């Protein structure tokens, strides 16, 4: 058709104007639909906090209180009691420390997540740098092995790992809880994908200027990888904070439990039907992750994209 052709830019503005006019009804309906889906998706999370703040007597009545009428923190004190108390003998402190286990679980979980995260940041970035930027015999097979390992379900190695850690004498210890998780390879993959995009000229310039190999990694590559390191750190923290199967298998002493294991321990005990109490525990476990999410939201989105790019 040789009719009057519309310039491309004009077509785009026309379409935008047309869309804006059409916005009203159909867009409103879509917005209502999306909001409904979001409300349903968020309801369980909301219900944790609503129930946790509702007095125990009011949780067992019909109709349920959608918004706590008399909000209280009682459930949090109750769950702290339900977990029991333990006595710790700290180094350099003469007085034994009496502490409610729930706070110990919170501490264990944080320690487990933070140590795992820090070690992953150091080791994963080192390996990723070598795999992304350096040529050496064995690099390709190693990378393919790592990629294949991502596919291995953790349940497959669960029992041999349990035996291995037991034979190392680390069953029911914090080291036993910590060590096997450090072999997670997903961070190496994520960081390698990112480091490949850093121009090699930067390293070469540093090398000519006399930087040592360690300095190149530490002073050139690491600072440029901060966005990817942030993503790796957040995902690692989330993975270990929320981890359940391995802590469940390897910790038997209630003083060593993580929050997730402690929660299921309380649920299986005499307070298993006290939902106000259970929800306050769930809230304790969920809150730190929610805070991390709001603080670093854009990194979560970025991380998912880097992960998906491999295609």
């Amino acid at each position, binding site marked *: 058709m040789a009719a009057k052709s519309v310039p491309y830019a004009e077509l785009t503005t026309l379409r935008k104007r047309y869309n804006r006019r059409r916005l009203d009804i159909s867009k409103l309906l879509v917005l209502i639909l999306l909001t409904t889906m979001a409300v*349903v998706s968020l309801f369980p*999370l909301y219900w944790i906090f609503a129930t946790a703040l509702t007095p125990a007597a009011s949780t067992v009545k019909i109709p349920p209180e959608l918004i706590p009428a008399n909000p209280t923190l009682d459930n949090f004190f109750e769950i702290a009691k339900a977990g029991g108390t333990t006595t710790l003998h700290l180094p350099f402190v003469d007085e034994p420390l009496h502490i409610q286990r729930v706070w110990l679980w919170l501490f264990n979980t944080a320690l487990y997540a933070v140590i795992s995260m820090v070690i992953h940041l150091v080791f994963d970035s080192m390996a990723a740098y070598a795999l992304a930027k350096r040529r050496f015999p064995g690099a390709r097979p190693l990378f393919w092995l790592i990629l294949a390992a991502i596919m291995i379900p953790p349940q497959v190695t669960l*029992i041999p790992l349990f035996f291995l850690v037991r034979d190392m004498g680390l069953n029911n210890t914090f080291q036993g809880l910590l060590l*096997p998780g450090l072999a997670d390879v997903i961070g190496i993959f994520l960081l390698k994908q990112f480091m490949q995009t850093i121009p090699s000229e930067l390293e070469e310039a540093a090398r000519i200027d006399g930087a040592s190999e360690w300095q190149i990694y530490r002073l050139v590559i690491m600072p440029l990888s901060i966005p990817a390191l942030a993503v790796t750190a957040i995902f690692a923290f989330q993975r270990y904070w929320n981890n359940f199967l391995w802590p469940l298998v390897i910790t038997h002493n209630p003083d060593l439990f993580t929050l997730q294991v402690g929660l299921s321990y309380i649920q299986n005990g005499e307070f298993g039907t006290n939902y106000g109490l259970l929800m306050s525990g769930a809230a304790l476990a969920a809150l730190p992750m929610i805070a991390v999410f709001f603080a670093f939201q854009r990194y979560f989105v970025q991380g998912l994209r880097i992960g998906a790019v491999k295609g």
Partner: protein
Amino acid sequence: MNAVSPALVQRATLFWNRHKWSYFFVLPSTLLFILFIVYPLFQAFLLSFQDVGLRRAEWVGLKNFEFLFNSTLFHKSLLNTFVYAFFVVVSWTTSSLVVAVLLQPFSNWVRAVFRGAFYLPYVSSVVVISLVWLWIFQPDFGFLNYILGLLGIPRVLWLQDPNIALWSIVLSTIVIIPGTGVVIYSAALGAIPTEYYDAAEVEGANAFHRLRFITFPLLKPTTLYLVVIYTIAGFQIFERVYVMTGGGPVNSTMTLVQLIYRTAFSDFNYGRASAIALVLFAIIALFSFLQFRVLSSDYEY
């Protein structure tokens, strides 16, 4: 005499000087990888051919697999796991695609708010989420039966009725829009050049045509990725079952990982548990492979 030739020494020194840093950088991760992934994987194969208990270990060949082949509980777990994985994959892939497509025309901040809302439920642990579902499903004071009561529907024993329990667990999974999928699909949708749509519009394609012939084909690699990760996640279902039902009532919600856990750590039959784990591994590997074959794309853009 076994004198090492000087040339060889020289070459080795050269090799060492050139590559020592590379090996230094990969050493910690590689050691951990070998010790805690490669070696246990190898052991998992060996264990599955043994009768291993608390104080015994004996080579029994294929006995464990024979037992599983004839075990109705294993068949039940296999079926339940497939049912769960099937519904999760189909429903999560579809709902995340629908939500991402619906979100696309809105402004950046509206999209960001919704992406955040859909992603938020996924930052807490499955244990936490399962605990609240246990409460929502509670027969007498749970929220779901309260809503049904308002509609005049008699109360349902969501997790206590063996005919319903598995479906309740499926329900608890699929009513939550998968935030991961929404974020990934949104990113992929944003990467499709708008010229394609403009051209199609000029040619007279309507909204459905544009979805069918531009959006869906170009999203194929993303769909493949999501289908694969959701399949893997679906087959690995454990925490929900462990917290909500423990595999009951009368094993009606037993899944493969729950069965692995119970066989190993309640029945102390580690060999048999390893055999189940290998079956799970084989299924996941097979499905990932098939999905790559069926869905892998010949589109490039």
